[in-house]
C-alpha cells in the first residue's frame, strides 16, 4: 500500500477513501490547518483549489494570475496564517519574482506552494521541472508519489516551512495529481493566527537589508542539507543489491512495477538532496539506476557529488512522461537485469487521429471565421480559442504564453512587419491574467492594432473556473462582475465596440471599422461559453436534404455536430454525400448556416 511517511501516523483514521492527488492536496490543506488558499487555474492543478473551496474552514479563491495568487498568500502568511498556493508549473514562472523574494524574507506562517509539472505536455506549453525553481530559490521541494503522500506532504511542508523560516514547494506531476489512490483521512488541526508583527528588516527588501537576508538564506540551506539526511521523507528500501534505484514521485511506483526485486532510495524531498545518504546507497549496490521525471535533475546533482557511474535519463527518454514500458525498455538497453517477464504486445490495426475540437456552439468559432475572411494576422493567446490554429479554421497564427498576444501585436505593428491587418485576440481570462498591462503599452504608444477580447465570461480551457468577469467565486457565491469596457476605456482606449461572435457578417463589419481606426481599438464579444457554467442548448439547425449540394463548406467551421449523411446529396454534381446535423449536439448557434451558399441549413421547426 501507500508508501507515505511510514509508521508515522498518530490518531485513528476517520476513514479510508480513494482520492485523486489534487483532492488529496486539498484534504492535506484542510487537515494541516490551512486558513487561506489561493490559486490560478491550469491543468493539471485546477482541482486543488476547487476542492479547498469545499471546506468551510479554508478561505479559497481564484486569483487574477499566479503572481497575485502568490502575493495574496504572502500577505496571509505574514499574518502567521497557514497558507497554500497552487498552480501549474508554467505559473511558477509567472510568480517567480515574488517567489524568489519571499524565499529571501522567510515566512512566519507556514507557506506551501503546490506546483504541478506536466511531463509529456498533456496540457501545457512547456515541459519544465519545478525542482529547478526550488534550487534557484534555495527552498525545499517535496515530491509525493501517490495521493496519501500528496495529503501528508502538505502537512510536512508546512511544518518544514515554519521550522526553517522558508516557503516550501510540493511538486506534483500530472499522474500524481490525476490518479486516484487510497488515502486515510484524519481530523483537522487548528493553528491560531498570530497576527502581523512589523519587522522591516525582514519584510522590506531594500538592498542594504536584503543582503543580510542573503546570509540567512545561505545558513538556512546548510541547515536544510543536514536535515534531509535524517528526514523520514527520504527512505531506503533494501532488497537485492544487484540493482539500486534512486527515484522520486510517481516514477518510484513505475520503477517498482518493473523492478520489484531491486533496492530503492526513494527521495520524498527532491531538493536539497541527502548527499551522505545517496553516496552510501550508491556504494552498496552493484548497478545504480536514476529514474526521474522530467529533467535530469538528480542526475546532475549526483554528478556534482562526484557520482558518475549510473544508468540515467538518456537510457529512458529525452522528453515526455515515464511509464513502466519506457523504464523496461531503458533498462534493457542499458543491460540492467530484470526478473519480471516482458509483456507481449500485439498490435492489429491503426486508428485515425482524434484531436480535440471546439465544442458545438462555441462562441469563438464565428469570429475566428471572420478573422479568416479578413485575412488578418492573428496574434493570439492561450485558451479554447487556440484550437483555431488547427484545421479546418486555421485562423490563428501565434500563441506564445499567457498574455503575449497584445504585446506581440504591438511589436509587430511597430516594425511594420506585415501589410495585413494586425489582430490581437485573447480570452477574458487571459486578458485579466496578463493582458491589461500590454494594453497599456498599446495605448501609450498609440499603436495601430485591433484587440479582440473573446469574453466568454469564464476560464473555459481549464474546466470553467470563474474569474473577475464571471460574477461568482470559487465556492459558487455571487460577487461583482468586472466591467471590461470600463476597464479598457480607463486605460485609454477610445474605440470600444461589442459584437455577437456568432454573427460572422457583423463581426467583419465591426472588425473593419476597428482596423481602420487610428490607434488601438478594442472589440469585445458577448456570448458565454456553450458549456460553462451552464450548458447552452437552443433549438437546433438542420440540413434541408433537397437543397444540399454536398459541397462541404459548412464543415469548414469545424463543428463536431455536422457529419456526413449516408445519402448522396440531391443537388450534388459529383455524387458527394449530403451533410447532416446531429440535433442532440447542435446548440443552434447558426454559424454553419451562415456559411451555406444555397441556404440549405435552417432552424429546425418543432
Amino acid at each position, binding site marked *: 500500500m501507500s508508501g507515505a511517511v511510514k509508521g508515522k501516523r498518530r490518531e485513528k483514521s476517520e476513514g479510508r477513501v*480513494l482520492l485523486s492527488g489534487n483532492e488529496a492536496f486539498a484534504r492535506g490543506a484542510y487537515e494541516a490547518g490551512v486558513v487561506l488558499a489561493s490559486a490560478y487555474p491550469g491543468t493539471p492543478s485546477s482541482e486543488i483549489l476547487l476542492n479547498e473551496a469545499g471546506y468551510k474552514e479554508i478561505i479559497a479563491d481564484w486569483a487574477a494570475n499566479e503572481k497575485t495568487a502568490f502575493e495574496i498568500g504572502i500577505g496571509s502568511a505574514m499574518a502567521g496564517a497557514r497558507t497554500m498556493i497552487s498552480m501549474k508549473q508554467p505559473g511558477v514562472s509567472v510568480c517567480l519574482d515574488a517567489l524568489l523574494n519571499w524565499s529571501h524574507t522567510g515566512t512566519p506562517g507556514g507557506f506551501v506552494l503546490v506546483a504541478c509539472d506536466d511531463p509529456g505536455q498533456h496540457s501545457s506549453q512547456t515541459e519544465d521541472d519545478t525542482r529547478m525553481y526550488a534550487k534557484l530559490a534555495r527552498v525545499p521541494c517535496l515530491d509525493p508519489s501517490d495521493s496519501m503522500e500528496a495529503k501528508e506532504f502538505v502537512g510536512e511542508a508546512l511544518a518544514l516551512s515554519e521550522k526553517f523560516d522558508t516557503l516550501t514547494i510540493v511538486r506534483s506531476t500530472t499522474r500524481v495529481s490525476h490518479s486516484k489512490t487510497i488515502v486515510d483521512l484524519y481530523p483537522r488541526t487548528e493553528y491560531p493566527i498570530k497576527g502581523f508583527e512589523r519587522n522591516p528588516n525582514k519584510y522590506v527588501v531594500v538592498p542594504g537589508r536584503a543582503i543580510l537576508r542573503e546570509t540567512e538564506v545561505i545558513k538556512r540551506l546548510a541547515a536544510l542539507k543536514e536535515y534531509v539526511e535524517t528526514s523520514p521523507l527520504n527512505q531506503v528500501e533494501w532488497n537485492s543489491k544487484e540493482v539500486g534505484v534512486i527515484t522520486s514521485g*510517481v516514477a518510484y511506483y513505475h520503477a517498482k512495477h518493473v523492478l520489484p526485486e531491486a533496492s530503492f532510495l526513494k527521495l520524498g524531498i527532491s531538493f536539497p538532496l541527502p548527499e551522505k545518504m545517496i553516496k552510501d546507497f550508491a556504494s552498496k549496490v552493484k548497478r545504480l539506476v536514476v529514474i526521474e521525471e522530467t529533467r535530469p535533475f538528480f542526475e546532475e546533482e549526483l554528478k556534482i557529488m562526484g557520482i558518475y557511474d549510473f544508468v540515467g535519463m538518456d537510457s529512458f527518454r529525452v522528453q515526455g512522461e515515464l511509464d513502466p514500458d519506457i523504464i523496461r525498455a531503458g533498462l534493457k538497453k542499458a543491460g540492467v537485469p530484470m526478473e519480471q517477464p516482458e509483456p507481449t*504486445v500485439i498490435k492489429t490495426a491503426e486508428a*485515425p487521429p*482524434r484531436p*480535440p475540437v*471546439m465544442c458545438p456552439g462555441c462562441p469563438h468559432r464565428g469570429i475566428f471565421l471572420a478573422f479568416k475572411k479578413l485575412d488578418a494576422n492573428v496574434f493570439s493567446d492561450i485558451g479554447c480559442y487556440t484550437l483555431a490554429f488547427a484545421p479546418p479554421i486555421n485562423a490563428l497564427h501565434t500563441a506564445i504564453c499567457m498574455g503575449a498576444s497584445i504585446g506581440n501585436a504591438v511589436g509587430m505593428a511597430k516594425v511594420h512587419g506585415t501589410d495585413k491587418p494586425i489582430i490581437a485576440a485573447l480570452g477574458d481570462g487571459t486578458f485579466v491574467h496578463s493582458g491589461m498591462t500590454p494594453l497599456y503599452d498599446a495605448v501609450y504608444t498609440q499603436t495601430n492594432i485591433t484587440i479582440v477580447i473573446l469574453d466568454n465570461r469564464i476560464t473555459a480551457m481549464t474546466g470553467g473556473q470563474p474569474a473577475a468577469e464571471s460574477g461568482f467565486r470559487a465556492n459558487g457565491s455571487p460577487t461583482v462582475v468586472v466591467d471590461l469596457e470600463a476597464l479598457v476605456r480607463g486605460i485609454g482606449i477610445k474605440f470600444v465596440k461589442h459584437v455577437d461572435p456568432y454573427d460572422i457578417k457583423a463581426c467583419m463589419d465591426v472588425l473593419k471599422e476597428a482596423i481602420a481606426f487610428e490607434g488601438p481599438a478594442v472589440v469585445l464579444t458577448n456570448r458565454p461559453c456553450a458549456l460553462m457554467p451552464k450548458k447552452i442548448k437552443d433549438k437546433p439547425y438542420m440540413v434541408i436534404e433537397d437543397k444540399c449540394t454536398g459541397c*462541404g463548406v459548412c464543415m469548414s467551421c*469545424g463543428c463536431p455536430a455536422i457529419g456526413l449523411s449516408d445519402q448522396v446529396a440531391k443537388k450534388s454534381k459529383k455524387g458527394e454525400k449530403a451533410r447532416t446535423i446531429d440535433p442532440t449536439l447542435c446548440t443552434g448557434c447558426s454559424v454553419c448556416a451562415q456559411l451555406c451558399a444555397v441556404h440549405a441549413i435552417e432552424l429546425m421547426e418543432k
Partner: protein
Amino acid sequence: MKETATNVYVVGVGGQGAVMATELTSEVALAAGYDVKKGEVHGMSQRGGIIASHARFGKNITSPVIGKGEADYILAFEAVEALRSIEWLKPGGTIIVNEQKIVPPIAHFLKIEYPDNIKEKLEDGKRKVITLNAFEKAVEVGSELLVNTLLLGVLSKLLELPEKTWKEVLTKRFGTKMLELNMKAFEAGRTMKF
C-alpha cells in the same frame, strides 16, 4: 482474494462516461478490500478528445499506469478507440467493444475514412473480442443515458468482484431518481450472453 493485480483499461471519447466506469470499478475494489489505483489524464476531454482510463486492483498495486500488453480487460466505449487501445490487451485478455461510432470531426476534413469491420480487425485468435451495441440496448432498457451503466454491467460479470458490492456502490452513486433505471441497465449488461 486474488493476489496479482487485475488491470482494467477503459477507453472512449470525452463525455461518454469512460472515467465513471473506472471510478465505480475502483470504488467496488476498494470496498472489497483491495489496494486500488485509478488514473487517466484529463484536460482536453471536454472537447471531444480521447479518454483512456486505467484501474488496477490487487493486493499491492505499484504503478497507476497499465503498460502495453498488460490489460486483463479493455472496455471500449467507441469502436475506433477500441482499435487504438488494443496494444494494451494481454494475450488471453478480453476486450468489450461498444460498436457505437463517433466519427472524429476532423476525419471528413482530412478525408480519412472511419474504419469498418472493427471486430475482424481486433481479432487475432489469441484474445477474446466481445461486441455489442450498447446504445441500442440502453434505449431498449429506457434511456440513451444508460450506455455506461450497461457497459459496466457487462464488465462486472467478468471481474472477480462481488455482485453485492457492485450493487452497494451503484446505490450510493445514483440518486433515488435514476437508481432504478441504472440498476436495470446494469442488470441487463450483466446478464447479456455473448
